[in-house]
């Protein structure tokens, strides 16, 4: 049984339809990349899963069909969503940001904090600083660290590599792979398809609000049309 299943999920912003029936499933322990051009509906798919947009169609999580979803309820169910642009609490300290990650947990465990600082030692040095004063890469680490504090069943990431230096991107993806090895299911939306297909086990390609292609990431890397459209060689 898949951990997450979307069937014919549609979503709209006012008059504009962003998802025209997305169908996909994510297994427990999977690492899934969602690819596609700008406006294909990648971000909206994540927002649909975490309850940030109203949807029609079916969405099941852990085998239960969920009808009216709110972000706070999905967080309680174990879905951590790191939106594009990191979305940290800019005027709160790094430590407070991490504590907020553990909001759905019973208190902030020192062990979890230590684990985040072990992943990202820079955050420990900056723990008393306001999150807004961190560099882009540090903020992405903080956003990821905050998600780790929630001990999520499912981690949703929107464009984690956007605007970051290659070295930082590598550090972020190394962390994602480690989290995935430790059992966290990950769904990542990425512009950088080469990177995403290397890290992920499975991938889906979205086009104008529909899934047009899906399968094992390595197969998609070899696929002629994917290469031409998204990998550029």
């Amino acid at each position, binding site marked *: 049984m898949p951990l997450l299943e979307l069937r014919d999920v549609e979503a709209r912003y006012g008059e504009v339809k962003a998802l025209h029936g997305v169908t996909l499933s994510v297994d427990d322990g999977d690492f899934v990349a969602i690819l596609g051009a700008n406006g294909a509906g990648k971000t909206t798919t994540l927002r649909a899963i975490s309850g940030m947009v109203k949807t029609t169609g079916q969405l099941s999580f852990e085998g239960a069909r969920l009808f009216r979803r709110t*972000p706070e309820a999905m967080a309680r169910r174990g879905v951590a969503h790191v939106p594009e642009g990191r979305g940290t*609490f800019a005027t709160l300290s790094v430590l407070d940001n991490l504590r907020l990650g553990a*909001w759905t947990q019973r208190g902030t465990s020192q062990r979890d904090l230590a684990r985040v600082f072990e992943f990202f030692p820079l955050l420990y040095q900056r723990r008393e600083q306001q999150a807004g004063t961190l560099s*882009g890469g540090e903020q992405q680490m903080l956003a990821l660290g905050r998600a780790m504090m*929630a001990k999520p069943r499912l981690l949703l990431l929107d464009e984690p590599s956007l605007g970051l230096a290659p070295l930082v991107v590598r550090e972020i993806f190394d962390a994602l792979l480690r989290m995935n090895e430790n059992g966290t299911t990950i769904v990542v939306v990425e512009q950088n398809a080469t990177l995403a297909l290397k890290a992920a086990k499975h991938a889906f390609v979205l086009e104008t609000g529909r899934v047009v292609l899906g399968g094992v990431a390595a197969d998609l890397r070899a696929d002629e049309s994917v290469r031409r459209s998204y990998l550029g060689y």
Partner: protein
Amino acid sequence: MTNFLQQIVSGLASGGIYGSLALAIVIIHRSTGVINFAQGEMATLSAFVCWTLLDHGWSFWPAFAATLILSFAGGVVIQQVLIRPLQGSPLLGVVILTIGLLIAINGLTTWIWGGAAKQFTGPFSTSPINVGGVAFSKQDIGVIAVSIIVVVLVGLLFTRTKLGLGLRAAAVNPVEARLVGVRVGAMLAVGWGLAAALGGVAGVMAAPSLFLEPNMMQTVLLYSFAAAVLGGMDSPVGAVVGGLVLGVLLNLAGTYIHWIGGELRLATALAVILGVLLLRPAGLFGHTAVRRV
């Protein structure tokens, strides 16, 4: 010198009241962007509730505690019933709603308790206390102490508790707060409750020296606006410091600058608002957000 010290202490007492009410205004403003014009009338209503309990033979501190609990509940109800349905609508509408609430509560208190001023006997005697050869009013000292205790408690709540963390998160970034599981709606309701309780403190502390009547807090509210603007509309620390500074400043100006006297106090407060807005719109403690992207 004696007179100078007395003026400072009595200024701090008024300032504690301005600061408490300013803090209430800032708590609501920084979480929703709404300026609650009804904050003063809500405080007056709290003072009337306390007066009624005292009138029924309660002793002061239990009555005070009960008043604060009732005020908190009242704030939550106002947010849930009146403010929540307007979520997502233009701020101006909500602000105008609070002006309507001001008029409604003023009418309510007049209807229930009448317009005549009532004697409100506070917990502190008005007799002087001698400190190092200078006579201070016990009431002033008491009001300062209560204000300090309340402000410290609110500060600890915001900085040391999980609820406080949620309140701050909901104020800073409501979308993100929901994503980590914070019930932002509940946080806004708690914010209104806290603000109402703080207003209750200000109202009950002001009542003994002002006479209790439905319009009692209207000028106090203007001083509190001045204090909040002076400290920075989004800075809780600024609101309290702004209140204390303003209280002392107005008292000294009224005493030593003869053409100001008692009559131009309010005008002086408005001049402070104007001056701050012109010279330093973020206030003394408000910060222009530092952000790297």
